[in-house]
């Protein structure tokens, strides 16, 4: 009974079972054993568990008891878009540090993008990532394979072999698939394995080497701009191709009003498309770049207040299914340079939940809807048995204090990437305990 744990008095939320109330969560041998609700809304659950109540009580003496009074008890969060940098860029991040950042941020599953060195475009690299995760990972890692060999956008990578090795989706993230025919083929071919194609929507001819959002601020700073149209043109193209092929398309890191509108329309028309955004696209605008702040350089770039409002509305009405981090750690030296020469990316795993909790405080989402966006929906899109507290599933649990304030100090990140535009911000709400793979992180 060493492995049993009893979390009581917490506010359990699990949208996969419609659970939302105070209750007791029992974990045994690393799996969810039981949920006992006090809340009237979950009487059905209660009734089912009633016969075992005495049994739970008997076990209490042996189990580790955690008092979660005042805390939310949620399924571990699922990040469907992160860069763990290993193999090849271990100076920026490693699977060990990236997964530690994940559990600190409340995530218990992370899907990692294939732009490593070598690129994850074959089963050997996929196997390497999974082996490393098994040995050193604090949480679960699900690799995303490359759409094209070497992410060169020329010919399809061996999707089937990578799928068998453990890849859960395919993407050339960071390098948009400019060739429309290749994108069509990817959306068609991936239907064999029922996995999504994740598109980084950017027309490289339109972005033309730009380094921030195009507009008055880029003029003000004398930086070349990336117009919103560079993203929207490709969002539209990929929606059209998804409609043509019946493939399952997921739009990564949506940043513009126009993209939200296109995705909403596509969903109304019944196209199989899902979409994610990231906390920085609904928390800050292009103004963060002022002063040539390389920590605010990200691709797609931070946009305008109008776009921020549209992203929030998209999250509210369901046009956007997922909040992902696009965790893109870089070494300090990489960012300590001329703005146009610095690499794009924000280290996001350790601030994502706190930034997203504001959406709940502002009344935009319920807590349950937030859990959908950050755990259930990404798990469903990637077809992972995650993001749920179902009886029998792995005990991936995060406990959240929604009221506790903390100051973001990048130097204290578990991630090697200290690159965040939120350094020094005081955020409200944080994960206080994450349970994953039988370990407790607090």
């Amino acid at each position: 009974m060493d492995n049993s744990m009893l979390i009581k008095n917490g506010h359990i939320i699990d949208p996969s079972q419609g659970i939302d109330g105070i209750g007791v969560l029992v974990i045994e041998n690393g799996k969810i054993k039981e949920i006992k609700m006090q809340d009237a809304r979950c009487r059905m659950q209660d009734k089912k568990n009633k016969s075992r109540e005495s049994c739970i009580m008997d076990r209490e003496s042996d189990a580790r008891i955690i008092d979660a009074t005042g805390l939310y008890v949620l399924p571990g969060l699922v990040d469907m878009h992160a860069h763990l940098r290993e193999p090849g860029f271990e100076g920026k991040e490693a699977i060990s540090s990236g997964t530690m950042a994940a559990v600190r941020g409340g995530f218990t599953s992370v899907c990692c993008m294939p732009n490593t060195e070598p690129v994850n475009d074959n089963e050997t690299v996929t196997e390497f990532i999974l082996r490393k995760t098994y040995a050193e990972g604090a949480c679960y890692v699900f690799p995303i394979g490359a759409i094209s060999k070497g992410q060169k956008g020329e010919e399809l990578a061996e999707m089937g072999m990578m799928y068998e090795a453990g890849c859960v989706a395919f993407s050339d993230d960071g390098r948009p698939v400019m060739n429309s025919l290749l994108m069509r083929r990817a959306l068609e071919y991936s239907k064999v394995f029922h996995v999504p194609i994740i598109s980084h929507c950017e027309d490289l001819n339109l972005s033309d080497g730009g380094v921030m959002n195009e507009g008055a601020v880029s003029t003000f700073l004398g930086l070349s701009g990336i117009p919103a149209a560079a993203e929207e043109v490709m969002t539209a193209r990929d929606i059209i191709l998804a409609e043509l092929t019946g493939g399952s398309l997921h739009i990564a890191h949506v940043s513009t009003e126009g993209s939200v509108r296109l995705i909403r329309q596509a969903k109304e028309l019944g196209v199989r498309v899902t979409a994610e955004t990231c906390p920085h696209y609904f928390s800050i605008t292009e103004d963060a770049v002022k002063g040539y702040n390389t920590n605010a350089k990200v691709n797609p770039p931070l946009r305008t207040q109008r776009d921020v409002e549209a992203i929030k509305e998209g999250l509210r009405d369901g046009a956007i299914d997922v909040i992902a981090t696009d965790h893109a750690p870089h070494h300090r030296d990489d960012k300590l340079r001329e703005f146009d020469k610095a690499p794009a990316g924000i280290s996001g795993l350790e601030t994502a939940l706190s930034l997203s909790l504001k959406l709940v405080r502002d009344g935009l989402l319920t807590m349950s809807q937030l859990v959908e966006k950050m755990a259930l929906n990404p798990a469903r899109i990637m077809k992972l048995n995650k993001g749920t507290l179902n009886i029998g599933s792995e005990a991936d649990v995060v406990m959240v204090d929604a009221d506790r304030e903390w100051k973001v100090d990048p130097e204290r990140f578990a991630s090697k990437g200290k690159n965040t535009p939120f350094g020094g911000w005081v955020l409200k709400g944080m994960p206080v305990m994450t349970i994953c793979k039988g370990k407790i992180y607090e």
Partner: protein
Amino acid sequence: MLKDLVGIKDISREDVELILSTASSFKDVLKRDIKKVPTLRGKTTVNLFFEPSTRTKTSFELAEKRLSTDVLNFSAPTSSVVKGESLYDTVKTIEAYGVDFIVIRHSSSGAPHFIARNVNASVINAGDGINEHPTQALLDAFTIIEKRGSLQGLTIAIVGDVFHSRVAKSNVYLLSKFDAEIRLIGPPTLMPDFELNSSPVTRHPSLSVYYDMDEGLKDTDVVMMLRIQTERQGRGFFPSTQEYFRYWGLDMKRLKRAKKDALVMHPGPMNRGVEISSDVADSSQSVILDQVTNGIAVRMAVMYLLSREKGDG
């Protein structure tokens, strides 16, 4: 005044006026038989030019020598930059030599700001990317005031590749601080998004954009021509230099749309026959060579004022 001069948008109207009046005194010095003053004796200046430059570099170097500072010249192709040294390490190394001024030209917008944040020396922007070229705008203003007495009430046309021109940007920011009417003239493909009246820096009732040069030049007091950067050709901003000249080149016929005595300016180097015809460039209305002369006095004034601000001038 601040520690550095990284851009016109970072300084006030009063700063501009102070620089221009100080430049006027230095111009008197330049008319003397002995053109050198001991103002910055014992100080050290590094000219860090990461981009090719003839006139700006020469002008700064002359200004520095007239002020008696020791001068080191550093050009990217012969430096450790080709060995892969970062800009940060380059300037930290230079600072360790104990320099007082770093004059920098760099192809990355914001590079001078980045350096200014990381060194104690005074940083002067000699042109960064497509952002600013503050001393050029100051010498342009100095030249206009010298010829017209003031910037107040003047209508000033800036013609050409405004998008890529740091000269145009700095001039817009400077003229916005005074009551001058600014007209930007050029093809839409080379016009930046100033979001007229919504951007804090360019909020100015009389900044307007013209694609039709004949209309835009009407009754202007000053015509500032910009260099068409030949390296932009073939990138699709306009079909050919021939067609460009037809619509946005300045020749005598077109100049007649402006006021009779309108000043013609150009930051150089000129592409004769591409953006400006030879007869205009060499006409009595052209003040292009006055701009060159005034550049030295303005740069002396900037360095003097920055050193004074640091309390050791």
